[in-house]
């Protein structure tokens, strides 16, 4: 089969460069590394399918993040095809579960206790370090909404039992 190698190379370069950041972003949204990789993969598949449009976008990262946010809202959907996704070795996932302890587990537990909207704001603002305007654009809402959701989320995190208990870890 003939593949446009130039386009493939360009997309591959984009994917390899962004993959770790996208998986981290997905981890913040889901609290699960496997789901995070699935989300990143779904977003990149869609970006690949529309690469001619994505490459012209002023911010391709924003495009992919939006897909991840929308896909995460809808994780209960059916599978696309009866196919086993084997994007990463399960051995790595197992290792990750073993090491998912301490401060990380506490922080993720607190984060997962937030409603999805507030969690997305926290992840985008304080994890991905986006501006309020960029966060609003990614979530398809107003800057005011980002501010209010962010404030509510931080208030809840301050009262989170997991983070209170985890104070010792923060001092390490």
């Amino acid at each position, binding site marked *: *089969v003939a593949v446009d190698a130039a386009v493939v190379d360009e997309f591959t370069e984009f994917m390899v460069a962004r993959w770790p950041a996208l998986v981290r972003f997905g981890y913040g949204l889901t609290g699960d590394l496997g789901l995070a990789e699935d989300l990143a993969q779904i977003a990149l598949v869609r970006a*690949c399918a529309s690469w001619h449009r994505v490459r012209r976008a002023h911010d391709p990262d924003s495009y992919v993040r939006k897909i991840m946010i929308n896909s995460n809202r809808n994780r209960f959907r*059916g599978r696309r*095809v009866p196919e086993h996704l084997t994007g990463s070795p*399960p*051995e790595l996932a197992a290792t990750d579960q073993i090491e998912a302890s301490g401060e990380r587990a506490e922080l993720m537990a607190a984060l997962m206790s937030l409603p999805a909207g507030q969690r997305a704001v926290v992840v985008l603002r304080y994890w991905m370090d986006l501006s309020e305007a960029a966060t609003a654009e990614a979530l398809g809402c107003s800057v005011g909404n980002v501010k209010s959701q962010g404030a509510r989320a931080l208030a809840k995190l301050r009262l989170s039992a997991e983070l209170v208990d985890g104070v010792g870890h923060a001092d390490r």
Partner: protein
Amino acid sequence: MEWAMPIDDELAIRERFERVLSQLQIGPPPVTTVLRKGIVMRIGQRIAVGVTAVTVAGAAAIAGISLAHSHQSSPAQPVSHHHRPVVFTDRIMKLSPVARDGVFAEGSVASEGRTSVWRIWLNSRTGKVYEGTVGSYRWTVGNIERSGHLSGIATIQSTNIEGFGGSYAVVSPKVTSIVLYLSDHERLTEYPVAADGHHWVGELTGLGLYVTREVAYSGRTELGYAVTYYGYSMYLLRPGERGLARQLKTIGSGYMPMNARRYRGWSAVVHAGPWGYCLTWNGASASDSQYCFSPAQVEVPGIKVVERTSPRFGHYLVGTAKPSVADLKLKIAGRPDVVIPVVDVDGVGFCAFTTEHYWDIESWAAYDRAGQELYGGAGAPHVTRPSG
């Protein structure tokens, strides 16, 4: 308890996130999987766009398009412009009839001076099936128990690992070879290898390649064949059996709110053929846009929802209904009834529609062409998750 809070400002939470992120062990990106799925999705989108354009123009020559295809080939690829073709040479080795160290398939993919040797094997102790290339990662692609459930001539599992597409299968003991026809017109032959009480075959192919057709033989006698949908194989047909007639039908279109201010057009098509049914959404934003299933997987209890997206603003829904159903009607509190046409695709009624999140659906009902209610129920139509 305020004094005990480890996070009292944004800086503190940023620092905590930073520490957590540094602990994450992230695997390599699944470049090949993404590229292959992206290409397939792109092809599906082009088909959907083309069909929608034809429908809107009133030139409904879909049947003609379908008839133009041969019954012995995969769906035609859309025309595209290529600058520098990448050519792969695939090989499958003939192994001994009984697996050594669980290896039941081995071969190579050569491209641009590089050759990768791949293997597919199982491990009875772990109960897993693995794929990998020499000198690279090992990937777990399935488990023996699930893969070993033989249905008919062969049970096929699609797999994609880094750098390759492919599949493996458990086949009937009657099968002595399987001939694969690839999208670049290569022809490969697989020979079953016994391992863990079953007979196995498998293959990996180069990036972007896929199997268009596979034929299972017992000696020189053909046992069955499959025509794939861009590599996705659902079931094998008996020799001479033609399977579903090729049809490409738009089953729904409309507009869906993307956020509080924007709407987006969508359409959905079903591409039926010897591969089964493959549904493609065009314009749906928040989910995968393709879903394939065999005729045996179609259940028509009323409406089977196989896709739903965008719960914040509403849902994209696809359903199957009995062929006698002409349309579905949703009764919504405080709003006019919504009538959804059902399109017959080779004996199965398909419908695609959207619902908005604030709708309070009181009841639904299915009607035949005479307007007679056939069946229905209270509330929204029951959602049956696809079994896959």
